[in-house]
């Protein structure tokens, strides 16, 4: 069997086994990392001794990074649902007339400006701004860096998640809404039972992307004195004169959190994917271009 045929055979076998595929990817990543570290150690750039001595140094900072990210993501999520709703559906109301129009115009304007302001300025600038302001309001409070930083991340992710939800709500078809109305659902019920569950399924993966981006952006909190991962790594690097080791360590921690999480959510999403809803995509065959077929379609089942 030639090399090409062997590769094809392996790919075919892996195709329907996402968990195994993820395991191989993670294994490969670990192998590469290990090879890199050992190689650098062999030429004397990296001290294995230092790595071993400080192996647990980043545990508490990792928790700090995680709590800031999880907290701000959760609050942003809750706020993004109503704000995404306004972004998605206010334009239609604004085309109408009467009191609704008068009520929604300022609301839509406010939410849209907020989103533009967040997306149009660097996260770094937003974090500095919030840190400075909260430092002025609560001078000398030792918890202020963390809470100010978390607030800054919340403000940031709220803007991005609002747009994710807007896209999700808008991709739920008008025919679905009409059908729900036709069986007597009230607008709130249409939203809760149709638009929200369908929209959430469509935006699971974009939301994971946002979480990963936010977690990485939380590194910026190091610059406003939050004792999180990057801050701790800088401390380790500068005070103990082993910056390369410190940054290898902190990279591993980010990877160790992000890769399994996104793989797990991807796996969960595939497992709970509903036939015909959203990106029903399954790759078949090998080659540079992959053919795409609808998942879950029985042979001849669609007309």
């Amino acid at each position, binding site marked *: 069997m030639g090399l090409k045929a062997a590769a094809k055979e392996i790919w075919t076998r892996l195709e329907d086994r996402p968990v195994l595929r993820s395991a191989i990817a993670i294994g490969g990543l670990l192998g590469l990392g290990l090879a890199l570290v050992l190689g650098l150690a062999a030429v004397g750039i990296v001290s294995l001794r230092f790595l071993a001595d400080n192996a647990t140094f980043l545990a508490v900072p990792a928790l700090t990074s995680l709590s800031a990210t999880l907290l701000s993501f959760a609050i942003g999520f809750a706020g993004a649902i109503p704000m995404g709703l306004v972004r998605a559906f206010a334009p239609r109301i604004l085309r109408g007339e009467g009191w609704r129009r008068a009520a929604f115009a300022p609301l839509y304007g406010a939410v849209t400006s907020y989103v533009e302001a967040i997306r149009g300025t660097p996260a770094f600038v937003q974090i500095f701004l919030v840190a400075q302001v909260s430092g002025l309001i609560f001078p000398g409070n030792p918890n202020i860096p963390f809470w100010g930083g978390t607030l800054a991340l919340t403000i940031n992710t709220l803007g991005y998640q609002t747009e994710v939800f807007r896209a999700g709500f808008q991709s739920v078809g008008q*025919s*679905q809404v*009409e*059908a*729900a*109305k*036709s*069986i*007597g*659902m*009230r607008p709130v*019920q249409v939203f809760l*039972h*149709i638009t929200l*569950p*369908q929209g959430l*399924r469509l935006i699971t993966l974009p939301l994971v992307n946002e979480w990963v981006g936010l977690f990485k952006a939380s590194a910026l909190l190091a610059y406003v004195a939050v004792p999180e991962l990057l801050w701790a790594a800088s401390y380790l690097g500068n005070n103990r004169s082993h910056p390369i080791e410190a940054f290898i360590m902190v990279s591993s921690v980010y990877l160790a959190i992000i890769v399994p999480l996104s793989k797990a959510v991807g796996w969960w999403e595939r497992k709970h994917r*509903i*036939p*015909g*809803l959203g990106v*029903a995509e399954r790759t078949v065959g090998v080659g540079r271009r992959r053919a795409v077929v*609808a998942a*879950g*379609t*029985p042979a001849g*089942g*669609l*007309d």
Partner: protein
Amino acid sequence: MITVQNVHKWFGDLHVLKGVSLQVNKGDALVVIGPSGSGKSTLLRCINLLVQPDEGDIIIDGVKVNDPRIRPEWVRQQVGMVFQSFNLFTHLNALENVMIGLRKVKRMDRAGAERMARFELERVGLADKADAYPAQLSGGQQQRVAIARALALNPKAVLFDEPTSALDPEFIREVLDVMTKLAEEGMTMVVVTHEMGFAHNVADRVLFMADGVVVEEGTPDEVFDRPQKERTQAFVGKILG
């Protein structure tokens, strides 16, 4: 049962319904025919208030329903609707599609709603497809689930908006059979369709619409075999041609 009196509807400058009136008696099937763009779908949507009429009255069972004091949600529970493109909820399987109205609108308990939903699926011949998602069903099966979903709420009448137009020919029959059975059981129905066979055999009355007005109305024999108006003659000649 359903009375439409002098209903007008504008979409912007477009005058879609220009004073439409009709009457459907309890247990009757009214078939509405007419060229596309004649306002048939808008008329149906006015009856269950998916579209609010600008002028005129919709009266269901003696109640004027296009009245600010009447909740449109209440009206839509009385009058079911079946859509051209089925519009099944894509995230719910067949059983849940039928159940959701019973659970959320009628506020039934899960066991009762499930019993009733299974009964409705049985009625349209799809008891064995309860667990299938819409994307796993053929067009004909989807439309029958949609009929079951409308019937589950025990409506006084059902509106059908070109229920077979989006179907491949081999699936049209199964949907028409379900509708015929429903008419025979005495369901009050308003059906917009191009299926002349169905109109001929099942309709009690046929109504021909063009350009937002009712051109002619009568029994199937009157409208199809002895149309009085020139426009009706031209249209009927074309579709029966």
